[in-house]
């Protein structure tokens, strides 16, 4: 115990030096917390967006679709898959979907696009898209030919409400064309959707896909869970179902590999530059602690003369380092905590930038970036800073323990 008392008081012999050092460490930690918080916040939001506007937490689709998406790679017995998934009691929503890569044409123009056939009453896309309608109305359940198109597509096709649209798609060597009418025009602000997405009912989509033996095809069944964390659990459960052999259960990570890679990459970049900061802070720490040890050579010699063992001297310097780390970490939490709180509440406002800047890895970032820090992250960053500080103190501590008692009597 006396060791800790001694260590604590030793730390404050040179208050200014100690404070500058601890502030440097604290700054490093605070910076890490803010930087990682923003990064995590942006990434989490991208993931949530990608899941919500995409194909959910889990997707059941035909094997081979992921590697090479193609219209003819569909679940032949779509209704059976849907039935099994619904019967499994998934805590969330289950959305049967048909998706076809097509050519969308009006009298005036023809454009590449994607036809998305959904359950117009129940699909989660309804919640995402309905609020963005700028003209017309959402599709009625009993409207088999109704279509919703994005604003940009409407402009390019010169299609107004009620206009006739032809959807042409090739499925397994055969080309199907179907006629539809524009019932509504949406504007989400997301270029992808406004330029390429055509929304229709499942019935419309089914007309484009060949049905055999009365089995109703689907491109996929998208599952949206209430609790993100349940994803791996339900993946196992769904994979264990007696689904048709052609069906494959995929997680959102498998569906959005570009996003996953981007996040890993971005994280790596963030950590690399934080590493740089850490290295420099380490130089500063070693410098300070080493100097404080070398200054006290005579004193350490005296302690050895009095009978203190080298191990205890080592312990003393390490205790000083430990306390320094403690002080710095608390400071760092305050700085980082303040920064994080501000960014979590108000966010980093990038709305003044052109929306293109926020397009990457196939998703759109929210122009208002908010910070998100999980306890694990804080613990990890704190641990790293703590560990680094302690490691920096090792060499000086060793130097201290090597001071021979003879030093006490040298002039």
């Amino acid at each position: 115990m006396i060791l800790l008392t001694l260590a604590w008081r030793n730390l404050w012999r040179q208050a200014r030096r100690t404070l500058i050092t601890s502030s440097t460490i604290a700054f490093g930690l605070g910076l890490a917390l803010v930087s990682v918080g923003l990064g995590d916040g942006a990434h989490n939001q991208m993931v949530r967006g990608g899941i919500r506007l995409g194909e959910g937490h889990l997707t059941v689709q035909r094997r081979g679709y992921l590697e090479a998406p193609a219209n003819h790679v569909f679940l032949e017995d779509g209704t059976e898959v849907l039935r099994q998934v619904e019967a499994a009691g998934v805590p969330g929503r289950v959305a049967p979907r048909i998706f076809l890569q097509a050519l969308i044409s009006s009298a005036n123009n023809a454009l590449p696009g994607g036809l998305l056939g959904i359950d117009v009453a129940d699909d989660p896309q309804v919640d995402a898209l309905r609020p963005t309608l700028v003209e017309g109305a959402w599709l009625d359940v009993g409207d088999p030919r109704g279509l919703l198109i994005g604003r940009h597509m409407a402009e390019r096709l010169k299609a107004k409400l009620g206009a006739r649209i032809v959807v042409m798609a090739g499925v397994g060597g055969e080309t199907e064309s179907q006629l539809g009418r524009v019932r509504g025009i949406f504007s989400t602000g997301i270029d992808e959707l406004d330029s390429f997405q055509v929304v229709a009912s499942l019935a419309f989509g089914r007309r484009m896909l060949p049905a055999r033996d009365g089995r109703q095809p689907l491109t996929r069944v998208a599952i949206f869970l209430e609790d993100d964390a349940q994803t791996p659990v339900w993946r196992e459960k769904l994979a264990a179902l007696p689904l048709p052999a052609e069906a494959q259960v995929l997680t959102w990570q498998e569906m959005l590999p570009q996003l996953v890679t981007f996040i890993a990459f971005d994280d790596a970049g963030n950590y690399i530059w934080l590493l740089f900061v850490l290295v420099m802070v380490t130089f500063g720490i070693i410098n300070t602690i080493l100097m404080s040890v070398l200054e006290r050579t005579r004193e350490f010699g005296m302690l050895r003369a009095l009978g203190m063992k080298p191990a205890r001297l080592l312990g003393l310097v390490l205790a000083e380092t430990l306390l320094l780390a403690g002080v710095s970490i608390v400071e760092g939490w305050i700085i980082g905590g303040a920064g994080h709180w501000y960014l979590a509440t108000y966010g980093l406002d990038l709305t003044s930038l052109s929306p293109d800047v926020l397009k990457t890895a196939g998703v759109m970032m929210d122009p208002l970036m908010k910070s998100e820090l999980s306890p694990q992250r804080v613990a990890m960053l704190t641990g790293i800073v703590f560990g680094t500080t302690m490691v920096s103190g090792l060499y000086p501590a060793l130097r201290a323990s090597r001071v021979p008692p003879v030093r006490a009597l040298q002039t």
Partner: protein
Amino acid sequence: MALVDARGLTKTYRQGDVDVPALRGVDLALEPGEFTALVGPSGSGKTTLLNLIGALDTPTDGTIHLNGTDLGAMGEAELADYRLLHVGFIFQAYNLIPVLSALENVEFVMVLQGRPRAECRRRARYYLERVGLAELAHRRPKALSGGQQQRVAVARALAAGPRLVLADEPTANLDSETAAGLLALMGELNHEEGVTFLFSTHDRRVMERARRIVRLRDGRIAEPDEGHGSHAVP
């Protein structure tokens, strides 16, 4: 039995490319309760001799037995323990730990020895009182005069209960009055407790106080001892 039995002590230092002999074959025996001074000019080897007896350093040749124990046979850790338990030190300056109060400084060695807290406190208070600094117990070294610091050092040395106290030029930085006071104090303690005091000094006042003087010159004992120290306290 002699408390300190040193035979043929030789110590050679290496300075750059040159070997510097500091001690050349010194024999010395100290009885318990002695109040002895090692005297000699700079370079005579008295500090070196003190180092060796205090187990701060190891001889190039020769043996030292403290209370029958052969120091040469002990490793670093054992020597540290030995110093901790059996030897007290008073240096010329920088005796005290700057961040501890006077009381805490006195307690320090006892705490290292592992004595119970209450005992450390009790003994520390006693010895501080004994050296006349009870009211300054909570002052830090920088708030104490040179003389007061040395007194605290004496208290610390004795509180730990050693058999032998080694003092290296303890009065060198003090004015006459203070030096006299300090020496008187040490004399009293030597008388009361029977602890052996060995000084290294070239201060006349110390030499006058010492009951035995051992002169060193060029690493050797120069003349026969002046005065054979009392073997026991009268």
